[in-house]
């Protein structure tokens, strides 16, 4: 009996390994292997054609002390993250609060507001390039109705990054849906109790809804911070095939890394850049995790 049990267990285990084997192979080939290679190569002058020579911390030193474009790209990325993350988060929460109500046609509204979130890729970037075109675009036309002389958007270094942030705001529907789902999970009895105490809509929102959805806000903020640091495609397409926009104003971190790797073939240098990004993202995520207990409220934690 005992022996049979053992073999049953072993048989189960073998099945288990077979089932997760594709992932293990994929992980070794496409994640772990590349990570190890990248880390080693970041200390070399690897450029894909010649052999690689060990150069020590040369790449890192060069990036941090001599390369002004590195700092430009880092600054551009920070600027984008600092403005886009809070704006999209607040926008998404506001929108989901509006959509979490009993209003005629609410299902239609929810579908509609989510639509831009699934639209991405070159088609959408082209659309925004046309919308923001200073002469023939819709945005400046609408602004002119209000007597506002719209800026040159993608042609003015001061406005290129705000342009991309507006585009991001348009497609806020993905996060909106997350918040909506979690708002629907908030127990009705909490609102009923508050109503008896005479709380108005705003009070209910700030004292019940907002605290109850903080776990989702946390999740959304962490993922959008990580995502924000990796902005690439829209900047590549909207800055004339990766040229980085006027006065390098759209030269984001990943765009510069791409240029170093696949235009200049400074692969070792680019991989050093990618590890600096990894460290930045890691530290940022750790700070987030550390700060979380101060404002994230988990149900059943207390009270």
């Amino acid at each position, binding site marked *: 009996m005992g022996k049979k049990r053992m073999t049953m*267990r072993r048989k*189960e*285990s073998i*099945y*288990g390994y*077979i*089932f*997760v084997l*594709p*992932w293990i*192979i994929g*992980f070794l080939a*496409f994640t772990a*292997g*590349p990570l190890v*290679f990248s880390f080693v190569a970041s200390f070399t002058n690897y450029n*894909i054609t010649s052999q690689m020579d060990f150069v020590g911390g040369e790449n890192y030193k060069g990036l941090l002390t001599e390369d002004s474009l590195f700092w430009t790209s880092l600054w551009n990325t920070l600027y984008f993250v600092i403005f886009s993350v809070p704006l999209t988060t607040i926008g998404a929460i506001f929108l989901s609060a*509006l959509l979490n109500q009993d*209003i005629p046609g609410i299902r239609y509204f*929810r*579908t*509609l507001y989510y639509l*831009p979130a699934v*639209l991405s*890729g*070159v*088609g*959408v970037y*082209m*659309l*925004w390039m*046309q*919308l923001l075109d200073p*002469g023939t675009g*819709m945005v400046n*036309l609408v602004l002119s109705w209000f007597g506002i002389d719209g800026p040159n958007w993608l042609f003015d270094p001061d406005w290129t990054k705000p342009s991309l942030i507006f585009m991001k705001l348009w497609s806020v529907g993905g996060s909106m849906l*997350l918040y909506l*789902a*979690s708002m629907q*999970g908030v127990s009705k009895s909490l609102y009923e109790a508050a109503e008896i105490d*005479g709380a*108005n*809509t705003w009070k209910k929102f700030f004292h019940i809804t907002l605290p109850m959805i903080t*776990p*989702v806000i946390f999740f959304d903020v962490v993922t959008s911070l*990580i995502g924000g*640091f990796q902005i*690439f*495609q829209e900047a590549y*397409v909207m800055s004339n*095939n990766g040229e980085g926009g006027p006065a390098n104003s759209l030269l984001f971190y990943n765009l510069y890394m*791409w240029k170093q*790797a*696949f235009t200049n073939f400074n*692969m070792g240098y680019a*991989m050093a850049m*990618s590890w600096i990004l*990894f460290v930045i*993202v*890691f530290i940022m995520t750790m700070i987030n995790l550390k700060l979380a207990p101060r404002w994230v409220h988990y149900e059943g934690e207390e009270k």
Partner: protein
Amino acid sequence: MAKTTDNLDYLDSADDLKTLDKANENPSFFEHRGNRKTFLVVFNFILLAIGSLLILSPLWWMFATSLKTMAEVMSFPPSFWPENWLFSNYIKTWEAAPFTRYTINTLTITIIVVIGNVLSNSFIAYGFAKIPFRGKNILFAIVLATMMIPGFVTLIPQYVLFANLGWVNTYYPLIVPSFFGSAFNIFLLRQFYMTIPTELIEAAKMEGANHFYIWWKIGLPLTKPAIATVAIFSFNGAWNDFLGPLLYLNDEKLYTLQIGLQVFKGQLSTQWNYLMAGSLLVLLPVILIFFIFQKYFIQGINLQSGGK
């Protein structure tokens, strides 16, 4: 436009709302709760309607521009309503670049990627959810940890790997990885498998079924909504993929729509009407899929937040 006045109306009502809120704090001042509720509904409806215009107008503008003559696009001020609806722009656009070939290429890649993602992720997720084995928790923790790695950290070394395999200028780099699972999808499907009762699987085993059979005959059918979600997300991901084709495809014959559109932009520079027609054609499948399967989108997201 008429909407401008609507806008002002609603600003007035925002002030009204504040007075109402004040009144509500002091019940004796204002007792018609019912009235206030109706008012809020109307107010929110108007707000949402204005928002819908903000969401939809870019798409309408895209459509309108695609039907105009270039002279009309350039005229000032540009208009929301095309003068003559030149649907022939679409035919011209289609013929100006090898769109048919790009479409076939994109569809081929997309279909294979969708199949790869659905099969591999549900297979792997079943293992993580329903079969006990040593080291499972550690492996699953690694699955989740890989979601934290910035894509560019592995992108460059992956390129080196595929270049060494001689896979540059083929579709292999775009399709092969989809057969080895991805963290987000494994996580999503595992959540679904967890809800299948273990007794069901035990009963199947009693009747002599092995795990492959159970996965195929019980697991797959019972997780249809999650599989639909994975399929739709993979479709969108592969259809919209820009970085992969940009990096790996040099031969114009192999180009996908996303890259084709990019080339097209250079050729016609500011021919906005054709460019918008092309962009709309590329977005159309995504829009159609969205409207056909929107309930699955919603379910998928619901689940994601449930597993916080």
